[in-house]
Structure formats: C-alpha cells, structure tokens
C-alpha cells in the first residue's frame, strides 16, 4: 500500500512538472534568501553566539532568560499597545480612506491617493516629525502652544515618557496608509461595474448598503491580504520608535518595541543567539495573533 502511494506521489509530481517549472525561479530565490536564513535564525536561537566564535548549543537557556527579562517585558508591553491600537486603527483607516477616495471623481482620486500614500513611499521621511515635535521652542508644536499660552516652556515631546509613546502612535498612523491601503485601492477598482448596476435594480438604497452588500464581499482577497500584512507590520514596528524617540535608548525604555530590543542585542551587544531567540518569540507572537484574529473573524 505504502509503495503504491509513493509511486503515485512520484507520478503526480512528474505529471505536474510544468507547475514546478513555473515555481522554480521564485522558489530557488525564496529558499536561498528567506527559508535558509529563517531556519538558521531559529537554529541560532538555541545557541550562544557572539558572531566571532562558533555558536555553542545551550538548549532553551535563551528562552528561559527571555521570560525572566524585565526589560523584554517592557518591550512586549509597548509592542502590544502599538499593535492593538495601531493595527486595527490603521486597517480601518486604510479601508475607509480607500473607499472614500474611490467615491471621488477620477482626477481627484489619483491625486488623493498620492497625498495619502506619499508618507509611506520614502524609507525615512518621517524624520520630519522630529522637527515638528522638537523639544526646543523652534519646533512647530511647541512654538504654537507657547504662542497660544497653553504651555509656559517647551515640552520635551520625544523624550518625556508621558508623551513619547503617543507620538509614536500618531506617526505610525500617519505612515499606516501603505501596503493595505494600496491593495484596497486596487481591490475597489477590481469590483465589476455590472454588479453595482444589478445591485441598484435589486434595491440598494445608499452607498453604505452598496459597500456592505456588494463591494466588501467582492474584496475578500484584498481584505485578507491587507489583514495579514497589517498584523505582521504592527507587531514588528520599530523604525519609528527607534529613530524618533530612541527606541532601546529611550528613557525607561518607554518606547522600546520588541524589534528595537532585537536591534539592541543583534547589532549593538552582538549577542546574536539571544537576538534570534527574541526574533523567534516575536514570530510566534505574530503567527498566533494571526490565527486568533482569523478565527475570531471566521476567515
């Protein structure tokens, strides 16, 4: 029985030769540059590796250490706050804005898409927020508040732990109209026009009914893609908190995310084994959240 199965498996593989041929160019790149490095990183998470000596196997010591690491717990908390606030908000914001833009006439549509998407185009244009929230009186926010008499002296927006996480959230939202937003725009464009006409005949009364009964069911693939990307991005955010507020160098680690903590151990302290361990935990966290969220949404 087993031999027969194997035989038919070989035959099935041979029969589908053309599928594998089509997959090959991408899969080769994918395996060499993504799968192997990921497996290596998972392997390294069970070692002590300082990037000079050969890694030495230490079992689950890194993981035990991680769950007793108070600073990691701060990073975990910050990441959760950012993920659970920015994730759903960004997703809804992206969807809603893509929809509103889609309701506009064509010329305006292209222009507005550019305005909303532009912040995510460049890798680091968010640095401009450091000048807006600059801690001296030359920052726009401080100078405006000073002139209005709301504050007496400049506020250290980016350093003060009572403000800086909020600012990271604002900037994350500013940057949030990226990948999911564009895929929603493409999704709205992909809905067949004749369905709207049919819907109108079937008694769709307003644009909200049209959105609910026709557009959303037609956009399932895009919404799924957007959700996966949003979950992955929200949990692995860190560039903004690092560059704007110091990340792992922020006061009391007030804005440090898990990703910043990885940078700290991977690129500063050269404890690569521990850094990989944090990365693996982050990966597990994202995969579990995705499973949970998809289950809740019954996708």
């Amino acid at each position, binding site marked *: 029985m087993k031999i027969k199965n194997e035989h038919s*498996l070989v035959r*099935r*593989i041979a029969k*589908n030769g*053309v599928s594998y041929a089509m*997959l090959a*160019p*991408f*899969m080769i*790149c*994918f395996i*060499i*540059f993504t799968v192997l*490095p990921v497996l290596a990183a998972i392997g390294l998470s069970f070692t002590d590796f300082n990037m000079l000596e050969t890694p030495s196997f230490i079992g689950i010591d890194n993981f035990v250490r991680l769950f007793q690491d108070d600073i990691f717990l701060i990073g975990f908390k910050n990441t959760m706050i950012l993920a659970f606030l920015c994730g759903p908000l960004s997703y809804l914001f992206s969807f809603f*804005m893509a929809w*509103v833009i889609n*309701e*506009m*006439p*064509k010329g305006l549509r*292209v222009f*507005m*898409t*550019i*305005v*909303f998407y532009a912040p995510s*185009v*460049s890798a680091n*244009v968010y*640095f*401009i*927020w450091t*000048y807006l929230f600059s801690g001296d009186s*030359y920052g*726009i926010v401080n*100078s405006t508040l000073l002139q209005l008499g709301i504050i007496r002296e400049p506020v250290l927006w980016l350093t003060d732990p009572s403000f800086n996480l909020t600012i990271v959230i604002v900037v994350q939202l*500013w940057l949030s109209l990226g990948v999911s937003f564009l895929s929603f725009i*493409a999704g709205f*464009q*992909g809905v*067949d*026009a*004749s369905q*709207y006409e049919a819907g109108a005949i079937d008694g*769709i*009364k307003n*644009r909200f009914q*049209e959105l609910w009964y026709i557009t959303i069911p037609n956009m399932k*693939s*895009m919404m799924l*893609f957007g959700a*996966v990307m949003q979950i992955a991005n929200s949990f*692995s955010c*860190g560039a903004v908190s690092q560059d704007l507020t110091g990340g792992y160098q922020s006061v009391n680690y007030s804005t440090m995310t898990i990703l910043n903590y*990885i*940078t700290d151990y*991977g690129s500063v302290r050269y404890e690569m084994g521990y*850094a990989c361990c944090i990365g693996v935990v*982050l*990966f597990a966290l994202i995969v579990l959240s995705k499973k949970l969220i998809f289950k809740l949404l019954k996708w």
Partner: protein
Amino acid sequence: MALKRKKQPVFASPKKQQRSIGGTIMLALLLILMGTFMAFPLVYAISSAFKPPEEFFLFPPPIFPNNPTGENFTQLGMVISNMWISFERYLFNSLLISVSSTLLYLVIATLAAYPLAKHTFPGKNGMNEMITLALMFTPAITAIPQYIILAYLGLVNNPLGVLLPTLASTMGVFLCVQYMEILPNAVLESGRMDGAGEFRIWRSIVVPNIKPVLFTMMIFQFQAVWNTNGAGIIYNEAWKTLPAAMSQVATAGIARAGVGSAAAIILMIPPIAVFIISQSNVMETMAHSGIKD
C-alpha cells in the same frame, strides 16, 4: 460563472448609483481634513528643504521659508561632488538595481503565483503556508544568516548581492495568489481547450487579467528595493546606492535639517514617479475589463 466583457469608456469609473449630494459633501470634507493631516508634515519637509539654515532658529518657526533658497540642494550637491563617485553614478546604481529587480520580480512572482493559485500538485498547500509564514518573520534577524549565504555564494561587494535577495520577497507572490484565485477557471479552461500550454495561459490570459495587482506589486517592489541601503553588502563606493550615499551626507541634527530635507525630497522623487505612472494605470485598467466569477 458567466464571463462578461462589458465595453465601457476607458475613464469611466464603476457606475455610481444612489448617491446623495449631502453624503458626497460630507465625505469630501472628511477627505480634506484627513488629507491635511497627511500632507502637512510632507509640505513642511519640502519647505524645510528650501529654508536657509538661519530660519531654523527663528521663533515662531515659519512654516514656509521667508527667503526661499536652493542653498541646501547646492550644499548637498557639493558634499556629493566631493565624494569619490558622482551623483549620477549613485543614481545609476540605484535605478539599475531597482528597475531590474522590479521587472524580474514581476515575472517570477506571477509565474510562481499562477500554479499556487490555480493548479493542484503535491506540496502546494505547504508552499502557500510557507509563503504566508515568511511574511511574518522579521528581517531584522535574518540579515546575518543572509550575509553568510551571500558570502558563501561570492556575492558580497557585488550589486547582485543586493538584487537577488529582493527577489525572494513573498509579499508580491502572496498578494498575487490572493488575486488570481478569483479569476474564473472557465477562462483558463477555454484557453486549454484552444490548445494553449500553461506558460501561454499565464502570459496571455492570467497576466493581462491581473493588471491592477501587477501595478500594485510594481510599486511595492520598486519602493522596497529603492529604499534598500545595501551598505552592509557593498563596500565598493562605485556600486553604492543613492540612499547609502544620502545617509552618509544627511545625518540628523537641526543644523543640517535643510540638507537632510533636501536629500529626503530627492530620494522620494523616483518612487513617487513610479507610483503616479502605475496608479493612473490601476485606475484605468479594471474599470473596463469585467472578468469575474
């Protein structure tokens, strides 16, 4: 499952039914409000690029420069022209890597996505699962193993060392698979009836019907590669990318705020250009090709 091909004028958007004027005005107002929030920092970045250094120390800080100047751009140009390599060479390197990566990726990603969405073969579900999982793995810790692999392949200090890993991106393939799944099988079947091979079906049926997603992938890929610094892989100045050169020039600090803004503005131009080209295509293509399940 009917195959509909509706002829509509190219610029027509899906016909809007049941629109109240009040609602449109409300939505437009909302759009203006959100647009202002989105655009203000960018406008400020652009205006900072034209500010003379002393205006960064005025109170209250002017939003628009009192005496606009091109000084920051000249200064940026001067710093770069004092480097070993010309600005044009950096730009050439970046464009070469970004454009070739984008074109190659569009081919191999759609080629891989087609069987992943529409064929049945052993290992298909596993591959799809792996691609989804890879989306969730942070690149922060794969950088070191990836470097070791590149070194093993002799690709360190070689532009291919920047280019090849960008072809392993799973986002485009994942997006493409999602979108291809809604293509009706009947169309593919009719292609097969006509005796077309799978490669032929891919080229003449699948690809033309996923244009919006193709352009979206083009934006993502170009932008991701364009923003790749690559300084960790390429040491040879002659092959460094423009972002790498710019980050050497524009370090933080308010005294260099103008130059930094100028550098950021220059770096934003090519991705925005690609974006505009592809968006105007996205918005036109699908409106008149009604091919749906």
